[in-house]
């Protein structure tokens, strides 16, 4: 059984919001029966604008949004895939500001460059709920209704704590950071550094950044080459982490890695006892569901908190199957289950010998 009940996770949100707000736990956002009836009667239309729709995270986020909206007879009328291109996002928001939608749920791609387009959408009379971050300078109430996010600060701390076990006294740890101005990855990196600074002041931290995913493997290799005693790496999310795993494996380098999000590849690597030693995972389905409830509350004119957060979940190789079910609302793939079983059998055999 998952030891982290909703009550527990509500207590452990470590990070503050984009304006220093204390988080309101996502499970506190619920519609009463009266609100629900009113929402159903008004048959709202909602559009979603995402950086990509192809990642595991996006698919689950969308599933959570669609299911929760549907429950209250709100239609998810359009999903925009911006393919990481901020210009596409700006154009999509400008178009939605003229179309028949009541609200938009959007994940801002970057910071200042998309702020004005988001503001303009709110000014057009549509409700705007943001995922993960609010561009610097945008204000809740005026420019958007709420930000719904995982506690990225907490995720960074978890990853530091899990990596710390693999770093010897006086060793070095590397950060594989994102070269784009993005609140969520900033928070993870700051939290990782802070945890290491206060719990492991003996550890030297080094960093390489990648601006696009194809550069992540090379950045990890560069870090290992520059720092001979490097004992572990924290990658700010799972896709660059797996790029690093592939690049390092090609050079026969085996180094402990922790990262954020339990993507399929990362889960499989953990199950095989590969380089990934721990994951701080977001719960995108739950986040999507919370974002939908916040959107409906805002559409009904109810007061909504400016910062709604969900605690993440720590995953280690020993509970990857159960964690997979909690995070993805799906059974773990066959390959993961078999890998866990065979490595477990190998362990028993080792112990017997």
């Amino acid at each position, binding site marked *: 059984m998952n030891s982290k009940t909703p009550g527990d996770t509500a207590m452990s949100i470590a990070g503050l919001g984009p*304006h220093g707000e204390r988080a309101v736990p996502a499970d506190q956002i619920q519609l009463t029966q009266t609100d629900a009836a009113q929402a159903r009667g008004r048959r709202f239309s909602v559009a979603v604008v995402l950086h990509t729709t192809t990642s595991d995270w996006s698919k689950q986020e969308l599933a959570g949004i669609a299911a929760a909206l549907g429950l209250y007879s709100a239609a998810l009328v359009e999903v925009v895939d911006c393919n990481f291109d901020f210009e596409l996002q700006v154009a999509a928001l400008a178009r939605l500001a003229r179309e028949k939608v009541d609200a938009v749920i959007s994940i801002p791609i970057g910071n200042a460059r998309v702020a004005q387009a988001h503001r303009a959408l709110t000014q057009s009379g549509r409700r705007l709920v943001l995922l993960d971050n609010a561009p610097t300078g945008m204000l809740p109430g005026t420019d958007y209704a709420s930000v719904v996010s995982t506690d990225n600060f907490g995720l960074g701390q978890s990853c530091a704590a899990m990596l710390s076990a693999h770093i010897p006294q006086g060793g070095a740890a590397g950060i594989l950071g994102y070269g784009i101005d993005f609140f969520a990855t900033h928070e993870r990196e700051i939290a990782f550094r802070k945890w290491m600074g206060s719990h492991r002041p003996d550890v030297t931290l080094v960093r390489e950044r990648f601006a696009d995913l194809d550069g992540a493997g090379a950045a990890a290799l560069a870090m290992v080459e520059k720092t001979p005693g490097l004992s572990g790496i924290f990658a700010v999310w799972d896709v660059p982490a797996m790029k690093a795993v592939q690049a390092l494996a090609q050079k026969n380098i085996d180094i402990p890695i922790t990262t954020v999000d339990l993507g399929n590849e990362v889960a499989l690597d953990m199950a095989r006892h590969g380089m990934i030693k721990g994951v701080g995972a977001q719960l995108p389905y739950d986040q999507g569901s919370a974002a939908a409830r916040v959107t409906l509350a805002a559409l009904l004119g109810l007061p909504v908190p400016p910062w709604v957060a969900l605690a993440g979940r720590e995953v280690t190789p020993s509970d990857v199957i159960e964690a997979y079910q909690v995070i993805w609302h799906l059974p773990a793939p066959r390959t993961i289950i078999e890998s866990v079983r065979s490595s477990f059998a190998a362990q028993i055999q080792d112990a017997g010998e």
Partner: protein
Amino acid sequence: MAEEKTTLRSVGRPRSVDAAQASLALLLNLVRTGAATTRQELERRSELGRAVVADRLATMIELGLLKEGELGQATGGRAPRQMRFRQDAGSLLVSAIDQSSIALGIADLNGQMLVEHHEAAQLDAGPEAILDRLATIFDWLLQETEKPAPWGIGLALPGPIEKPAADFEIVPVLQTIQSWQGFPFLERLSMRFGVPIFARSGVQTMTMGEAKAGGGRGLSDIIYVKLGRSISAGLISEGQLHRGAQGAAGMIGHSRVGDELLEAVAGAEAIAREGKAAAEDGRSPYLAQTLERQGELSVVDIGHAAQLGDLFCVELLGRCGRLVGEALAPLTNLVNPSLIVVGGVVAESGGDSLLAGIREAVYRQSHPMVSRDLQIMRSQMGASSGLVGAAQVVLEELFAPAMLQGWVGHGSPLHHPEFQKSLERVTAALASKAAQPTGRVAP
């Protein structure tokens, strides 16, 4: 070198170096604030001759302070080229330190925040820990954003900050907290980054932040009230922050309600205490449950309970709102603001009951003309107002005409002769402090 250049290029009427600095400063501020951007406008607003304006602009372009921008509106003949202030000539580091959190950010020279970060921190953990955290994140912000070197640090601190006797003079801060006594906080931070540092009370910077980028944007008369563990207010009157004789203006939490201080009956701790009492004696079933689950209660729980309709909490927050409103009403009558912004953790969690209480008392006790167009709103900026305000503080200080004249010819405030001297003094003082033996050697 820049000074020589200015002197060499000076044509027309003979003028001293001081006058040259004054005209440079005047023109820079006209362009920076957008008051005048074309050569023609600059000549008219500054009352300087065409040749002098041309010379000063050329100097400032060379110093990297101004650049030529796009074409302006033609008024017959060629469209004039607009001058632009180089907001990327330097950067500003800002931090707002509170009892239980710190905020940090980096801004450009127009005071526009580029990146900000907020995290939990305990002030009573001592100055060394906070200093270390500030330095670490400032370093990270500079590296991450790849912005040019900072020109100054703006700090918002809890409690009043004294006015320094002279420019760049550093004042002691947070002396009421035991672990901070005698600690050269501003000196260390200023020296670490080699930049001037300007500090104000948290509530004063938040007031400036609200006026610049929050509900008070474009308004010249606003009051900001911070409702947290302590209660204080900031005032902008006719566009200027009112600091008071000692810099301690706004301590309204010290006004009396019966025999008690306002902040002792309507501050965050008082509200939490009342909530706990009600949880224990059964007046609030919701709080009783929360207390049992969490083992403690904060004003956030009471705000949440009020939102869910807990009668005790609705009444408690309404009463606190009225008490705060009663303290604000005389102030409202005195200064006739167009807006009162309410911020701080109590305002954020207090919901509509609190705001309704404040409104009720202020409107009831103020003159009809004063309250006719008065708006009372909750802050939307949260702790960001402290950061935006701290950036404004640095800009107002660095670009104050007298200060600006001291550095404009050098292209950066870091080369201001008085700042250089101040930095040397601080460095020497800290070095001598460090050199003092910590223990007496036995004879």
